[in-house]
């Protein structure tokens, strides 16, 4: 276990000053997520344009440094990607947090991968994995318009 790996400077910085925090104007898709174990809530908003590109994305919520940083980094990376790319990146991220040693997505640039890998320290803390994944599951729910609130206790 290594706290320094978990609480890297970039995580602390994003946790303290999350990007894209708030409710974006003209969003046309959104979804809520909830972690009943710790009471964390997140609400993801996005604007998908006619070409199915994420024109804008933001989130509202409160939570620990890991969950806030994860949502912040996620929104930064997803902005400008198309729907298909976004979903593929989410899948890649969830795979990495659960078991894969690295990210494989061709839709992520090297510097984006480096940024995302800062969250990999959470792997060593099984109780905290859900903090990191909540906003990502919620993003998928928003894209798919499932109207279903994400609940981390009902996920693998």
């Amino acid at each position, binding site marked *: *276990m290594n*706290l320094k790996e978990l609480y890297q400077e970039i995580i602390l910085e994003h946790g303290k000053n999350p990007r894209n925090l708030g409710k974006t104007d003209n969003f046309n898709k959104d979804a809520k997520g909830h972690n009943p*174990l710790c*009471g964390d809530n997140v609400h993801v908003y996005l604007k998908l344009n006619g070409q199915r590109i994420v024109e804008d994305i933001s989130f509202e919520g*409160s939570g620990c440094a*890991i969950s806030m940083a994860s949502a912040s980094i996620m929104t930064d990376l997803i902005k400008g990607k198309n729907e298909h790319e976004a979903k593929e990146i989410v899948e890649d991220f969830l795979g990495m947090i659960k078991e894969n040693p690295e990210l494989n997505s061709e839709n992520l640039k090297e510097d984006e991968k480096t940024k995302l890998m800062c969250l990999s320290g959470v792997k060593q803390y099984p109780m*905290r994995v859900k903090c990191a994944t909540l906003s990502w599951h919620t993003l998928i729910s928003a894209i798919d318009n499932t109207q279903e609130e994400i609940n981390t206790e009902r996920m693998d």
Partner: protein
Amino acid sequence: MNIDTIKKEFPIFDEKIQNNDLVYLDSANSSQKPKVVTDRINEFYTKEFSNVGRSVHYLAVAATNLYENTRTSVQRFINAKDKNEIVFTKGATEALNLVANTLGQNYLQDGDEVLITELEHHSNYVPWHFLRKSKNIKINFAEINDDCEVTLEEIEKRITSRTKIISITHLSNVTGAILPIKEITELAHSKGIIVVVDGCQGAPHLRLDMQDLDCDFYAISCHKMYGPTGLGVLYGKKKWLEELPPYQGGGGMINEVKKDKISYGDLPNKFEAGTMATAQVIAFDQSIKFLEKIGMDNVVKHEADLVEYGQELLQKNNSVKLIGNPKNKGGVLSFTIEGIHPHDVATILDEDGVAIRAGHHCCQILHDKLNISASSRASVGVYNTREDLDKLNDSINNCKKIFNTK
């Protein structure tokens, strides 16, 4: 038994937990187990095991006697009038569900009111909530004051002509507030209201006397009082336990079973359906004797000293904010740290070997009222020392260092 050397009785403190000495500050969640208790479980399973109350062979009779001995010990420990007022359950949660469910069936009428408090653990709210739908019961909440305690005056204010039950915690698992149960019961009884007490935090940390408190029901969690998991105790006044219907049906709780009619067993069997947590009950006798050996007055004194010391330490620590300041307080210190989420606090403390709890501690109503989603909680037991609280404070400082806050 000297309380200053009590740690030695708990084998877990000889272990290294992730290369650290364990500083266990999560006893309000569950306490560690002294060797006498775990030894007893092992001994019973390896040398004396049998089911109780059924067969006539030697082991069955011996096990039944041991099982009933624990009931007598519980009766003595809480000073209940009658041994048959002690019912074993699978936990305090089941004990509270039993009370809410059976009172709901036999006693409460459409539109009746149950008064609880904003301090309640979910297990003293959700069972009553079930009755909102099935019986159209209304639930009222006595509110906390600025010190996060619930006063007798507040309870009095919330009582209406429809209040039939007051169900309250003895000692808050978040703020540590100790409620004036005796006075509340006196007031309630003068108005014909039943009093149910969630004693999960009361039983391990306070001297109990059911005949003095005079409450009608008292729920106990055995794993919080240095005993095994999977076991709780419901104390109920005999007249109530006799009047209420059984909670679960099955073997052991019946008198006679025919195709057209069934009669139920006497107390306490009526409420102990199926094979009970035999080994746990038998080992729980050791938990009670362990506490009696220390003496509950010494436990109270020791924990009061710890909480006072801890409060002082944390009050002096910048950016730490203690939740509540009840005049009458048990060994619970809940707090928030400015700019650091409780889950981050708990993870960092854990790395230093300091085990606390972070979250809402099954008290979402209280956290909503305080306008926070979560808090960190350090809670003490007989084995804790002032040094443990020093380590807590040091580790909090480490958190602040990592998060670069003052």
